[in-house]
């Protein structure tokens, strides 16, 4: 198992190197002189010279990359042009908000997706199965920003049950925090629930047809025990790893959800940066998201190895 993990870690090195090259290259996509564009409205030659020196834009491209990587290694992602604040500090402030939202969304997606997937497999060919499949199709076909707008219209504007926007930390007021986050978390988790439902259904159908389930039934065990104890335990292993990977997708989805619900998180940070042409922040956010995604991938692999005795040996 250690050998397998070591190999996996070694494979990550070229991936991380190429990710850094891709993200570094983004600023060179800017049409014209990056320093002029990064300066935005500011036309003061001194400011432009400062930007050029700060990002080493007057150096050869390989040196520019090495300076950038050196900065990344010591946690220096540059400074926001608009907020005049270190980007790493901004990310450290915003990331926990998004992680809280994404965790809540994942819980909702797991409960709905896995629950419906199991129900759909157990009741294959019935109305329950059709309803669960329809739900999955709805989940993967609905743009989350539209669902968010429609939910605000129904639950905030029409019924007045939930706040339309804002964020409350659970450490300040737990019930208010739940009230403020339930709608965005559902919007964010909706599409993942559809994906999880489809995979759970497939895995459960396979498990329910296996020999060990047939043996459990032949022994006279009650059906709920056969489903929950024997079939589900085995079917859920790949679902857990898939859940870890989908958590990365939630970070992507959070961009629009946070924008709609005015949540001051990571997603809103990138949108505000894009709208204000704060390119260094965009670069920093993409870098951190990719890093989180790579770590989640690795955790999913480790989880899969731990859950699979054949790989552990």
């Amino acid at each position, binding site marked *: 198992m250690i050998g397998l993990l070591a190999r996996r870690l070694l*494979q990550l090195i*070229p*991936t*991380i*190197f*190429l*990710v850094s*090259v*891709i*993200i570094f290259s*983004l*600023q060179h*996509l*800017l*049409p014209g002189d990056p320093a002029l564009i990064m300066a935005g409205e500011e036309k003061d030659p001194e400011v432009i010279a400062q930007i050029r020196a700060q990002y080493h834009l007057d150096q050869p491209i390989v040196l520019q990359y090495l300076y950038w990587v050196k900065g990344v290694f010591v946690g220096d992602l540059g400074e926001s042009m608009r907020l005049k604040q270190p980007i790493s500090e901004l990310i450290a402030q915003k990331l926990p908000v998004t992680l809280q939202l994404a965790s809540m969304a994942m819980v909702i997606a797991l409960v709905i997706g896995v629950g419906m997937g199991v129900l759909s497999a157990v009741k294959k060919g019935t109305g329950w199965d059709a309803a669960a499949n329809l739900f999955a*199709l709805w989940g*993967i*076909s*609905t*743009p989350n*920003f*539209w*669902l968010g*707008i*429609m939910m*605000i*219209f129904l639950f905030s*504007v029409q019924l007045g049950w939930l706040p339309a926007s804002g964020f409350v930390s659970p450490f300040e007021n737990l019930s208010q925090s739940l009230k403020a986050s339930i709608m965005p978390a559902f919007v964010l988790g909706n599409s993942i629930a559809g994906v999880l439902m489809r995979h759970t259904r497939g895995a459960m159908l396979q498990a329910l047809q296996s020999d060990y389930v047939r043996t459990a039934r032949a022994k006279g065990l009650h059906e709920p025990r056969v489903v929950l104890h024997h079939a589900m335990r085995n079917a859920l292993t790949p679902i857990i790893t898939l859940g870890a990977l989908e958590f*990365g*997708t939630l*970070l*992507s*989805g959070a*961009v*629009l959800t946070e*924008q*709609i619900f005015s949540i001051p998180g990571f997603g809103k940070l*990138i*949108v505000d940066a*894009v*709208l204000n*042409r704060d*390119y260094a922040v*965009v*670069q920093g*956010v*993409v870098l951190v*998201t*990719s890093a989180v*995604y*790579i770590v989640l*991938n690795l955790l999913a692999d480790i989880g899969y190895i731990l859950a699979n005795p054949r790989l552990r040996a």
Partner: protein
Amino acid sequence: MMAGVALSSPATVAEPVDSPSRRAWRRLKKRRGAMFGLIVIVALIALAICADLVSPHDPIKQSYSAVRKAPSLQHWFGTDELGRDVLARIIFGTRASLSAGIISVGIAMLLGVPLGLIAGYCGGFIDALISRFTDAMLACPFLILAIALAAFLGPSLGNAMIAIGVTAMPVFIRLTRGQVMGIAVETYVEAARAIGNPPWRIAVRHILPNVLPQLLVQITLTIASAIIAEASLSFLGLGQQPPAPSWGSMLNSAQRFLTNAPWMAVWPGLSIFISVLAFNLLGDGLRDALDPKNR
């Protein structure tokens, strides 16, 4: 005489053999969801092409006497904050969404399929290099990378298509590479190699046609994702620029008038949902119809 009887007997008359594509079409026709999806897609394409003929109003003509009017006989889907007809903008918005979906997937295919073919067929160092590049691209979440690319390239529908296409490319590289690696060891490929065909000819004439069914499924499902991605970028102001209509940008302005004019949000969202649903249904149907296990 005996020979004549044997030749003319029904058992020995060669039955017309269905081509694989005809068999797949027959199986696809049996799937109601997929056929519904196909009909909706054809209807959407027709709507996009004939937008000028079927649209009841000019999609960019403003009318300050008809600002935020509820749906009526004159304006079936109501009007927006500038008095423009929502139905006309939905009809013309079909062009932006469908072209973004189709063109961006075209870009992803044009870049991804040849790279996947080269990686899968050549193997070795070239495969390792392309595969690590694919891993790196896949490590950047789809929408975040598309937003970043669109932001750096500059806000426009064309750049949004490029951003989505480049971001969707690694999926096509990985799929093609995997398929090619499986097909490259088949006996008919070995035979093609044995009679002296050059590698490019083997890849294009013998391997690529066998990868196409899987690619077709992926194309359909990726168009669905690309439509959502274009709407997302336009929603953020990085796609179609005003006053040209796009479902995503329509939703952006609708958000500000949710209390007074909810119809402004209902129709563009519903249009995105229906088109994405149609491509997903067709993709699911194609996957089942082309799956060898279902034969």
